[in-house]
């Protein structure tokens, strides 16, 4: 039982990182129905910006977070502007958009390999307090580190921030309006392109935070670090119901737990195959995800 609870705690911290990444996938998918394959690589860029901020600029980790968010937000806008918008305006088939997204992803990964070199780098120690806290709950003992608490807190703050943006600001309402019906949104005077850019910026900034957190969590960053978390976050988004913000959060946490349980009770080498198997099972049996509704497709 104690072991199980310990796995849950581990799953919670990794799950919240997945949730942060999944949010970006889900928002972009919700608004332009595109799987942004490059999203995981934006996370990687965020991790490197954070690294540069603490190592070269000697900034504190909190400034590193902010700087990483800012830079990747710009990167997100740039990607959308250069690669996806021309296709969207031409009304290109989704296959073309998806292949372009794969192209952007490969571009970022290999530019990373070229610029940052393939070697693994580590964030300097002591950036965030990482002390184990022993907790006893109803006679069961388990350990939580202060770092795990920090991850949860950061995720929580960002989720509140997102909630505020999406539900209380004008831009957030515009985002939801465009996702709902882009032509009707245009009739309201909403600049659809600008709104899409903003969505990319927001999603990318969240990915950057996840990138820095992952860098701290595994104490290692490399140019290909975004691929697996990216794919898994996508799976998390699908699991929760793609296009749904609460779905991304639920999906992220569920995936985190699942991974923790598979690695804890079976084998960490089986973790990835199991997660992919899960994806396929959801796609087959509940493609609208845990929180989505199945709909009759109109011909």
């Amino acid at each position: 039982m104690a072991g199980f609870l310990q796995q849950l705690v581990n799953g919670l911290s990794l799950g919240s990182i997945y949730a942060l990444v999944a949010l970006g996938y889900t928002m972009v998918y919700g608004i332009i129905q595109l799987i942004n394959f490059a999203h995981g690589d934006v996370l990687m860029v965020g991790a490197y910006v954070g690294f540069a901020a603490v190592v070269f600029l000697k900034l504190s980790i909190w400034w590193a977070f902010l700087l990483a968010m800012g830079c990747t937000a710009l990167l997100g806008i740039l990607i959308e502007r250069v690669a996806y918008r021309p296709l969207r305006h031409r009304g290109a088939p989704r296959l073309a958009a998806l292949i372009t997204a794969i192209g952007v992803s490969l571009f970022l990964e290999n530019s990373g390999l070229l610029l940052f070199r393939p070697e693994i780098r580590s964030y300097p120690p002591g950036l965030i307090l990482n002390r184990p806290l022993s907790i006893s709950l109803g006679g069961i003992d388990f350990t939580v580190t202060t770092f795990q608490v920090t991850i949860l807190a950061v995720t929580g703050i960002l989720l509140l921030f997102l909630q505020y943006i999406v539900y209380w600001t004008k831009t957030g309402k515009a985002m939801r309006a465009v996702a709902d019906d882009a032509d009707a949104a245009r009739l309201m005077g909403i600049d659809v392109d600008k709104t899409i850019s903003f969505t990319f910026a927001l999603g990318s900034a969240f990915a950057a935070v996840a990138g820095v957190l992952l860098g701290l969590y595994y104490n290692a960053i490399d140019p290909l670090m975004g691929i697996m978390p990216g794919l898994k976050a996508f799976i998390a988004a699908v699991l929760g119901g793609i296009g749904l913000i609460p779905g991304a959060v639920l999906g992220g946490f569920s995936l985190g737990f699942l991974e923790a349980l598979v690695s804890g009770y079976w084998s960490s080498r089986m973790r990835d195959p199991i997660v992919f198997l899960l994806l396929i099972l959801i796609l087959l049996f509940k493609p609208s995800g845990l929180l989505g509704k199945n709909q009759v497709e109109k011909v």
Partner: protein
Amino acid sequence: MALLEVENLSMAFGGLMALLNINMQVEEGDLIGIIGPNGAGKTTLFNLLTGMYRPLRGSIRFRGQDIVGLPPHKITRLGIARTFQNIRLFGDLTVWDNIRIAQHWHRNYGLGVALLRLPPFHRVEEEIARETQLLLEMFGLEPYKHEKARNLPYGEQRRLEIARALAARPRLLLLDEPAAGMNPQETRELMAFLKWLKEEFALTLLLIEHDMSLVMGLCQRIYVLDYGRLIAVGTPEEVQNDPQVIEAYLGQEVNDFAP
């Protein structure tokens, strides 16, 4: 036995009834019109008849066989073909290929024959080519043979879609707004063409149409749908003078608006 029998057919989208208890009887050789205001459920009816949707309840019998739940391609093979309101051609393929593809289910050879180019390949391909040529000539599409379907003028695209449907050898042909986007002259031509088509291929025709001159001039019997319900059935004259139909189209006459 009627060619097509529809009983109590109903369909709903997200709780909204799109069709409610539709009953129809179509005899071999009939030419029938389906009319009704926007959103009345006409295309939904076609989608149910061709297996695109599964009805909420009700039955559809074609030549005595219950076809509810069959996938669209099986229904086509039983003898129902259709065209679409927004023309769905194989746009990047040539006119020639569009017609060849539609003969797929009745003129074919095995996968092994195809991979190894065994003798039946050439024989069947020649048959396909002959029939394709014949159809293109009949429909006046021969000059466009090697054009991509999407590059054809609008009227020719409509004609190609009908030709493609015929290549699938239907007994019952469903036409969804064949006259949409045509001017009066073209519509008159289409009318003559449809009459000829019906005789030439011994078809039974069911057509959704908004152009009343076409429907009234062509059809023996007209079904009128409104809000998913069948509100009238009859000859053109009967339907034109039916108060419910007039109301569906022109709205109620009410006098509570001061000018």
